[in-house]
């Protein structure tokens, strides 16, 4: 089976508002990051791919299957929505078993797969824990278990790490990387760190349009030689922020260590540093403007 998602000229309108405009993307096997600010249209794109929303225009195929064949698409797709939840009175095992039934799994399959998935997401010991008593991280892990239990070829996760503590976030990112073998994991987020730690291929969506699509190294090359760090007096901070795109500030007493993006060396004591994805993302979002408040 061809494991890829092909999107050509996808447009989605909500009444007069265009949420996605002429989006074209090719998503290969492995982890793929979809980055963008809040309201960029990421959730809309995810929902079109999971058949929860009808597209207005364009062509979409998932593993060679046109998106219009919703039944077939649902068979090969696992979806973890942004605010995953389950019935509070069910425990972890019951919830996963219930969703496995909805995924069309037989009793024998469920007997094997449910404990296996709970173990995979480190919830086997908590299988009797009621959903209402679970932490946000535990719920998300259960969410990923339900998304992969029927062994889908495509897993779509919408902002899965929002609201998680740092430890849970790292654990969750690692889990996504583990399950990305032999399948597509489409990770949508506005948290740049998640993409940086997990994805090689990314697309950046802004105001319903793709403004970048490629390898992480290509994104970084956009700001290569344009990221500087400097130690300045804290009182100068406002003036510098007005003049340059500042991507990091660490204030210590009267001094501030800042990281900024500039086309050329902004002042003598500034040192050029290696850019990271966050710098590149900020540059992309504010390209053309040198006076931005961050």
């Amino acid at each position, binding site marked *: 089976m061809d494991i890829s998602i092909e999107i050509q000229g996808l447009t989605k309108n909500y009444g007069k508002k265009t949420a996605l405009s002429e989006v074209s993307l090719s998503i290969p096997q492995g982890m793929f990051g979809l980055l963008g600010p809040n*309201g960029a249209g990421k959730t809309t794109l995810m929902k079109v791919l999971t058949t929860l929303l009808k597209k207005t225009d364009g062509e979409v195929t998932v593993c060679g299957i046109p998106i219009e064949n919703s039944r077939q698409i649902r068979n090969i797709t696992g979806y973890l929505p*942004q605010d*995953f*939840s389950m019935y509070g009175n069910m425990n972890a095992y019951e919830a996963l078993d219930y969703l496995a*039934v909805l995924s069309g799994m037989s009793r024998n399959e469920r007997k094997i797969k449910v404990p296996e998935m709970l173990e995979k997401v480190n919830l086997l010991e908590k299988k009797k824990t009621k959903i209402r008593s679970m932490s946000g991280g535990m719920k998300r892990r259960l969410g990923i278990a339900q998304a992969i239990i029927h062994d889908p070829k495509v897993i779509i996760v919408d902002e899965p790490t929002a609201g998680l503590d740092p430890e849970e976030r790292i654990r969750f990112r690692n889990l996504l990387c583990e399950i990305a073998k032999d399948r597509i994991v489409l990770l949508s987020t506005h948290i740049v760190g998640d993409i940086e730690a997990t994805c090689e291929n990314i697309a950046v969506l802004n105001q*319903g349009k793709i403004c970048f699509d490629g390898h992480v190294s290509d994104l970084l090359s956009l700001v290569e030689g344009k990221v500087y760090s400097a130690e300045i007096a804290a009182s100068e901070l406002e003036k510098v922020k007005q003049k340059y795109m500042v991507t990091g500030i660490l204030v210590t007493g009267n001094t501030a260590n800042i990281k900024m993006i500039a086309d050329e060396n902004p002042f003598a004591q500034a040192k050029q540093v290696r850019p990271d994805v966050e710098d590149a993302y900020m540059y992309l979002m504010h390209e053309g403007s040198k006076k931005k408040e961050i």
Partner: protein
Amino acid sequence: MFGALFLKECRQVLKSLVYYIFVVVFIFSVNSQMSSENWEALKEPQPGQEYYGRTITKDETLIMEKTLANLMQDLYHGSFATYPLGFYKKVTLVDEENKQVKEILERCTGKSYEVMEKELMRHFEKYEQSILEEAMAAEADYKISIRESLTYEEFGTAMEEICRLVGKGSFYEKTMYESGVYVPMTYEQAKEEFDALCSKDLITRGYMRLFCDYAGIFLAILPIFVGVSGALRDKRAKVEQVVFSKQASGIVVIGSRYLANLVMITIPVLVMAFLIQRPCYEMARSMGMQADFFAFLKVPCLWLLPEMMIVLALSFLITEYTDSILAVFIQTAWGIGSLFGADTLVGDFGLKLITRWNTFGQRMLYDSLEKALLWNKGYYCLLAAVCIILTVIVYERKRKKGGTYGKVYKTNC
């Protein structure tokens, strides 16, 4: 998939507090109505008894007198109760139509409306209307004498004119007035009834009809809460999107939920029917009579299951469509309207949601009304199926719209 999901949905119903409230309220309500039976009906009628009960009359003069009395009361109060498609509808006529009704009434009785109005007021003044028994007696005793030359055919034509004015489902339809006028029974009639109770009803079937009468009142309303709670469950738990994204079709999801709720509601009803039937069965056996042990299954399944089906199905449909508890208000109003809209406590089925049979026995009457009952129950079974199909359509439409949307939608719509 359906079977596994059905069992899981049953388990979910069992975890619902609303369900337990339903069970407790149902048991308490029915028990409070049926706990004091004196088994008089099991005693064979003897010649010379003062009272043998009531029966529907076939006497055409009596039918005409009572029907016209009913018409006079409706005209006096300015409204006519009708049940088009089983739903209560209060019909108020315009002046011109009221004038036509008056003319029909005057034609049938040979008296002026003013005279009949005075007679009506004089009659009801004789009774203390604030006492229920008195008010019921006033209603039962009130009749209008007809014009001597009035034939039954002429009367029938006049009632057809009334039906044209007030619309479908009124008491003035032939099938309604021919089965809605009661008279005291004679010894022979009582004996015939008793024999029918023993031979056709096998005692317990007749008793189960009485159980169904009381249970039917509560089942017109109580399952609404179970249905609404079940249909709102996904929304409350915020699991709509994850369920929508699964392979299971709307028919499987809605169908299994509906069936699970129906089965879980039916179980306590049948258990209650069994418990209520037990003393009757034992009493009949102790008196050497043959009794039907399985009446607690047969009668409620015919009488109550279609009612539970439509109540639950409609609550599913309204809730799925509105995502609110609106069904509670709409259906409670329907249930109450149906309860108070019956012209009699025994029979008068039409398309009413609650089919009354507030008596132990009366098999002869039941035989004459069985067809009407089957039509009523068949109609509601069919309507329930239609409601569930519509619920599936609404569910699938919501699924294609994604339930809730992303921030783009939220901030712009």
